[in-house]
């Protein structure tokens, strides 16, 4: 029994030597969205994004609180939370995905990660493909980029009266600077 646990311990130690630090995390990631129409531009920013990247598998998990989006105007923030994304009912948006070209990215051959995954907003999950610029600096691994989402895809209803104020497609930008997890 004891020998077995020693062997297991040795194995774990050896394993962690070979793969020193694979999980990277940030709790202060940045995601913003931007809606442009001739009537008005709307921008909101969320600076409390939780993102975890596992470099051994290329898996990415992102979780954000809808109420953490800050708008310039309090009224817009209120409408966003109460009427559009119904953040009392759906407090979080999530993304889970995988870097498809992990080897290329890891070897430094390609600075752009192709991420395939699922995005859940307003309780609705859709497949998405996102390109993310990857930068490694010391121990920091950052993913930055932008992509478009169609508001109607997520069953977010915009009342007719403000339809001209809110774009059908909004641009989502992200900047996630991960550090080794513990």
């Amino acid at each position, binding site marked *: 029994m004891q020998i077995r646990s020693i062997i297991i311990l040795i194995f774990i130690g050896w394993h962690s030597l070979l793969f020193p630090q694979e999980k990277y995390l940030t709790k202060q990631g940045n995601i913003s969205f931007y809606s442009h129409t001739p009537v008005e531009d709307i921008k909101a920013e969320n*600076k*409390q994004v*939780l993102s975890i990247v596992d470099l051994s598998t290329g898996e990415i998990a992102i979780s954000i609180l809808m*109420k953490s989006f800050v708008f310039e105007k309090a009224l817009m923030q209120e409408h966003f939370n109460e009427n559009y994304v119904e953040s009392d009912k759906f407090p979080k948006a999530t993304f889970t995905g995988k870097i498809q070209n992990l080897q290329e990215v890891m070897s430094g051959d390609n600075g752009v990660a192709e991420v395939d995954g699922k995005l859940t907003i307003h309780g609705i999950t859709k497949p998405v493909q996102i390109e993310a610029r990857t930068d490694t600096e010391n121990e920091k691994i950052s993913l930055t980029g932008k992509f478009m989402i169609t508001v109607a895809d997520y069953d977010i209803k915009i009342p007719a009266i403000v339809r001209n104020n809110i774009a059908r497609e909004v641009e989502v930008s992200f900047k996630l600077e991960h550090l080794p997890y513990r």
Partner: protein
Amino acid sequence: MKGVKRSVYISGILIIVGVLIGLIAFMRLYNKPHTDVNASDADHTLAAKTLLEAFKTDENNANKLYLDKIIQVEGEIRDISAADGNSIITLGVEGSEESIICNMYPTENKKALGLHKGQQIRIKGICTGFLLDVILVRAVISD
């Protein structure tokens, strides 16, 4: 004839005044300021541990109770950091990896410099929910 002219005149003025009032009301509503946490009373005052436990045991229920509310929380400083020029004070709970992350209002930067780890503190902020930790935003140090 004179009476008709007069009533047209009066109703014209009334319409203009009405539109002006409407416009002012709209602008005021449109430009309504964000909640001033500093000037508002807390909806709930509780210990860091109680708040964290509430979210860990029943997140849905805690969301109903605390989401979007002004929470005053008392606890021990586990970490002080900064992101994008704003201080972030993390309140820890003994025996728990999770914490309460308070994203401070820019006005608090100076005060945050005078703080140190391990210190007991009371912070007031708006709760936006729970990821790995409970998140408070627009937080201020209350005394």
